[in-house]
């Protein structure tokens, strides 16, 4: 059995606040392209944070690639994330004082385990190839502040994909794009996930995109904290 994500009895809250997540069960098979939706404040971003090991689950079992994140120390979770997970934010994905190339290369430079996944190819070469695939090959040396929002999101996708992590987590990456760009971005993202054999968890309000995914998850349906 190879679930990329296998969550059992997850409960989470910020500090001493109310429960934000209460998810008895959530599993994602390897290679799944999951569409996660729910109203604002339903805990989508929070769930992604827990899956990525940035937030520590208050209770429960969170297995990612077979590793129980809840049992790992903070530092080990950080290392795990660096090596196995790619993350795309809704916007403002990039570090303003780094060039496009440096932004893409960031996870590889941050963690040796991720670098080991480059198959012996150089960081720059790999980044250039990915950028080529996402049609920003000519922008590598630019400052990120000179890019359009669509270009920025593609840079963020490149960064998530570099080193071929098993799990790509994207938090509304298309919400600041217009319709045509949205479609183009998704197609490119899917293509790269397929190439890398990655599992994708994609959060969006935009139900029109739903049909492109292999699985749809309604967070209000699985999150008992909302009832």
């Amino acid at each position, binding site marked *: 059995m190879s679930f990329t994500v296998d969550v059992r009895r997850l409960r989470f809250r910020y500090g001493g606040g109310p429960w934000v997540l209460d998810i008895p069960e959530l599993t994602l098979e390897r290679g799944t392209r999951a569409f996660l939706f729910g109203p604002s404040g339903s805990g989508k971003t929070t769930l992604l944070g827990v899956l*990525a090991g940035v937030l520590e689950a208050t209770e429960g079992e969170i297995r990612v690639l077979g590793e129980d994140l809840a049992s790992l120390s903070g530092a080990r979770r*950080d290392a795990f994330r660096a090596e196995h997970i790619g993350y795309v934010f809704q916007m403002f994905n990039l570090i303003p004082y*780094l060039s496009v190339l440096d932004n893409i290369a960031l996870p590889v*430079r*941050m963690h040796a385990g991720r670098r080991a996944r480059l198959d012996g190819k150089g960081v720059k070469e790999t980044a250039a190839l990915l950028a080529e695939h996402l049609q920003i090959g000519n922008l590598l040396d630019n400052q990120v502040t000179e890019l359009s929002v669509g270009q920025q999101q593609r840079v963020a996708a490149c960064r998530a994909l570099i080193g071929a992590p098993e799990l790509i987590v994207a938090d509304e990456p298309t919400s600041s794009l217009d319709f045509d760009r949205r479609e183009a971005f998704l197609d490119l993202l899917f293509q790269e996930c397929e190439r890398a054999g990655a599992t994708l968890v994609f959060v969006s309000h935009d139900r029109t995109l739903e049909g492109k995914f292999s699985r749809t998850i309604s967070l209000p349906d699985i999150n008992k904290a909302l009832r």
Partner: protein
Amino acid sequence: MVILDLALKSLRNRAFSTSLTVGSIALSVALMIGVENVRMGMRESFSNTISQTDLIVGTKGGTIQLLLYSVFGLGSPTENVSWEAYRQWAEHPAVAWTIPYSLGDSHRGFRVIGTNQDFHRHYRYRGGQEIALAEGRANVDLFDVTLGADVAAELNYALGDEIAVTHGLGEVGFLNHDHMPFTVVGVLAKTFTPVDRAIYVSLEGMEAIHWEGGAPPASDDEHVHDETDAATADDGHVHDEADAATADDGHDEEADAATADDGHDEETDTATADDEHVHDEADEATADDGHDEAVDFSIEDVEVRQVTSFFVGMTSRRDVLQLQRQINDFENEPMMAVIPGVALNEMWQGLGYAETGLRLVTIFVVLVGLLGMLVSLYTSLNERRREMAILRAVGAGPNRIVSLLVLESVCLSAAGAIGGLALVYMLLSAGQSFVEAQVGLYIPIRPPGSIEFLYLAAVVTAGFVMGFVPALKAYRTALHDGLSVRV
């Protein structure tokens, strides 16, 4: 390494606030090191107020007191040393040279110092520099004076001017001894030491000032008294050698006759003339080496009875301690010898609290500079929350966030420290000669020593410690925010 790279790029990205922060730290560090340099320069010039003098000898009393009156012209001795005792030590085989001083008088607030040609020959200051004359010549005759540079400048005296000297140290210098005027024959070059603020006369001239009646005491009289039956005139006009006659305009022709000076001296057999008046009978009128004073005895006629203190130069430095002991144990008179280097150091140490205060102030200035850095880092954190979330998303742990911010503050303080050091050397090399010319303070330019490195290390360490304040704040927000930061 990646974190250092990030830190540097992030600082470069905020170039304006970075350069302001580095600039303010550099200024404060420059102040701290600059003060240290000035302090050392001051100390050096202080202990070099006199040089090459091995012992200062005076009557028994406080070490500092002896130093104060014989070197700095402050305060006055209680007792003097007899001329016999002085000569005895001056002729000691271990002694190469001496400079005798006779102190205790003043002229319009400046010290009058009686000494002899040994002063010009042997006095050294600031690493062996000699006393030089800016104008005129050294004082050799009884009523010659040479002025320190400041005295000449402040009192606006020129060569040939006549001045009166007061017995005692008061500010008023007009009434006494007006009839015994000294003539300015030389002005010393500026030394930036207490020499500049003194007036130099011969030992004999100094002795003459002390004659209470304005005349030398009877030769066999040990002490000076008024109302003696010696050749003193009530009004202070002395005429020993009666054969010399001078006349003024109103009383020419009768050269052998006595002339009246303001109605006095009717009974005297000599005539006196005021300097303003022309002497017609030049061959008959004799004046002491061209001066027209009423006083016409010469330097050979004066017997020096005592000195206040004297400087000693040794033939061999090794004998200093031994001679010092001998002088301190001298039985004929209570005497004391001090080693100027040691005593000056002791005195400087006594001023230590001022140094400590100064240093404390500069340390606070540096702390303020570093606090500025802390504030600028701290306030930048809010706009950098996004950056922190991104770093966390790509696998940076909270510890890496901490090290990023601490590194930034270390970089800032290190850059400030190095910049401050550079600034000090720039200012020193630009202003060294100016400062020396203006205030006589020579600040040596040395390669940075252990004190500088200690300061720089302290600044960087303080920057490191302070970096934890914003870093821990970032750490907590990073842990709490997770990935849900909204801009």
